[in-house]
């Protein structure tokens, strides 16, 4: 038996022993475990599961063991992911510190920053959010204006960030701030970590069309930030942000395909709505073929993910193929949401009413919330620009600014 097979056996045995049965079911939004200063748990089992994974460092499986991480290599991490998937284990915790900041700090942070922040991320002691976009800087991110001025032992930050996921609930925020107006606008940006308990920080939630308010606007009014919170060199923050963006896009694409499974398949919903004809087919030909198209698209996306993975393993990686995944994955999810509403008609359009089932009520909310998928993490239009430029080598549009988010 190879080491990896041995690891797989041991991992599976450990998961079976340590993951409570209640944590091996589909995770709804209210079941998610978040980290934080004032962490709460949706259930005792969720706490147990989180604590066991945390103590093994498997909240961050690939982070180095010296910082409390799991210390797994890529192959082992894949085994862990596969076994968790196979057993239906929920993620023990979800956090942008784990998925985005941590990997960036490991790459760009200094030793003191890693020693201080990484263990806290692994242990879920702080909840992180991302401060990138501003009211005047969306797709054109590099034009951001949140001002950061150096003083003796601290920076003074003034400005505002928007579309900050979980900005109200988070403890710390990693931000892009303007430290210089000289030269190219990308060259005056720095990457700063800010404790949201600092005086002068205020987060206000934004009400969305879905009725939810996961995004916030964060205001900075003369906020003092210690100089040791600067990640990388001053005015070199754009490089850190670009490194981090890889992780964000990967997460967005996975999020997309993760949602796409849904609680009920489109086939099931259509069967309930239209019944089946004598030949056993869903008794609404147009919907039936529309679902077939959707399923073909999802299958093509999954196979492309698999091909890309196999190519990487065989050392034949085509770096351009992953560029399409966010675009095709997020649009597929939206197609699904639209079909689900079309199939159920009025029953899917309930806003809040006890006459509707939970899954009926979710249909419209999912559609409205998932509108964010093609906008967040770089809009799909920007993504198409990137494909045109990097994969196809088409000439630059004569815009004043060539760098795009």
């Amino acid at each position, binding site marked *: 038996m190879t080491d990896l097979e041995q690891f797989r056996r041991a991992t599976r045995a450990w998961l079976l022993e340590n993951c409570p049965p209640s944590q091996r079911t589909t995770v709804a939004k209210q079941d998610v475990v978040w980290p934080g200063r004032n962490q709460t748990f949706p259930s005792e089992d969720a706490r147990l599961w989180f604590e066991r994974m945390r103590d093994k460092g498997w909240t961050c499986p690939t982070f180095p063991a010296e910082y409390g991480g799991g210390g797994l290599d890529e192959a082992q991490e894949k085994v862990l992911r596969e076994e968790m998937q196979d057993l239906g284990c929920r993620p023990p915790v979800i956090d942008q510190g784990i998925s985005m900041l941590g990997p960036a700090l490991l790459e760009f942070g200094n030793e003191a920053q890693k020693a201080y922040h990484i263990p806290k991320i692994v242990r879920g002691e702080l909840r992180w959010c991302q401060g990138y976009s501003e009211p005047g800087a969306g797709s054109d991110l590099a034009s951001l204006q949140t001002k950061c001025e150096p003083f003796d032992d601290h920076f003074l930050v003034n400005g505002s960030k928007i579309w900050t996921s979980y900005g109200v609930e988070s403890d710390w925020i990693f931000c892009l701030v303007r430290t210089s107006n000289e030269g190219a606008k990308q060259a005056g940006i720095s990457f700063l970590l800010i404790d949201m308990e600092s005086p002068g920080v205020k987060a206000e939630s934004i009400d969305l069309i879905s009725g939810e308010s996961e995004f916030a606007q964060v205001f900075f009014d003369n906020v003092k930030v210690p100089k040791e919170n600067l990640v990388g060199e001053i005015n070199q923050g754009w490089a850190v942000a670009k490194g981090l963006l890889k992780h964000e896009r990967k997460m967005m694409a996975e999020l997309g395909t993760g949602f796409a499974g849904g609680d009920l398949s489109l086939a099931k919903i259509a069967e309930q709505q239209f019944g089946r004809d004598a030949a056993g087919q869903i008794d609404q030909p147009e919907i039936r073929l529309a679902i077939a198209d959707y399923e073909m698209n999802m299958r*093509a996306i999954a196979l492309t993910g*698999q091909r890309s993975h196999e190519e990487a393993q065989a050392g034949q990686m085509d770096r351009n193929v992953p560029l399409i995944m966010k675009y095709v994955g997020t649009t597929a999810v939206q197609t699904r949401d639209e079909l689900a509403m079309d199939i159920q008609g009025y029953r899917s359009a309930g806003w809040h009413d006890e006459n509707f089932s939970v899954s009926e009520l979710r249909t419209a909310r999912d559609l409205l919330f998932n509108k964010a998928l093609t906008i967040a993490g770089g809009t799909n239009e920007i993504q198409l620009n990137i494909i045109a430029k990097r994969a*196809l080598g088409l000439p630059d549009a004569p815009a004043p600014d060539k760098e795009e988010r």
Partner: protein
Amino acid sequence: MSLVFTEEQSLLQESALEYFAQHLPTSRFRDIRDAKGVVSCDAGAWQQMVDLGWSAMLLPASIDGLEFGLLGMGLLVTEAGKTLAATPLSGAATLSVEALLSCAESPARNQLLREIAEGTTMPAFAIGPASLLASDLKSLDGGLEFVAEARGADSLIALLADDSAARVVVVDLNSPEVQRTAVNLIDWRDYAHLQFDNMVIAEDHSFGANEGAAARLESVGAAMTAAELFGLSQEVFDRTIAYLCEREQFGRKIGSFQALQHRMAKAYAQLQLLKSVLYDALTALEQQRDDVDLAVSHAKVLANDTAQLIGNEGIQLHGGMGITDELDIGLFYKRIRVLRSAYGSSAQHRANFAKLSGL
């Protein structure tokens, strides 16, 4: 591993690229069309492919075959598509061979397979109804329509099936008992209607095929068509990108216009999806996987629709030049239009996918 090429397959692809560029480039398609009015594979080119071993790719090692598999054959057909090369790779080296391999092993069967591998015969292939066979199975009466490569071929291997049984028969197309009527399609390729007049089948040229042979041959045909459509799409895509990087209007390369960039980026995404689905379908056929019918129907729908999208964009983005005979884009486009109907339309395969998915 199934969706990436092995080293051997990559080498095969390289030699295919080289072969078609050198011996059967698009300019050769044009030359033959202008001289003869129909583009069919000639014996000389077939012999070159035989020498490269391509005719023996699917044969078992027991009869000196290479056992290279359908993914390898698919990539040859894809490369042929890129230069509009007319080849018997699909009809003779793949479908005819697969049809014979669906019959019980016998000296006569093995002899025919060897003849194909050695290039001493260049058969066309067709699937037809069992009703063409007389009740004693000894003669053929009736017609087959739109048989590809039937004018250039010297023999026909036909799989004749109904719901209960399937037979593979091999007949000489130069016999006076068969009438070949040329059919000229927009792609200038070799098609004919065949009419059999109580044509006697040689005793050792008739074989019982195994159950499911007709379904498998339909699938292999659809997958090979999808492979050619992938090559056509890739070529039109590459030529269009090159044109966008070269053509100037309003003082700039037209490829710098975002409206056009986004259209090509979407086409690129579609092409990448097709590549994955096609390789999966060929692998499914090669490994005789349970979900092979679903995988192939998916591949044919996506190949049809991707080729249509890219063919349309190719013409449109070449502007007026796109509709001239001077440019090759129109030649690719016409081949695409024909292949969309070969071995099942999008509508048929979409319906099949839906059925197999329990929809």
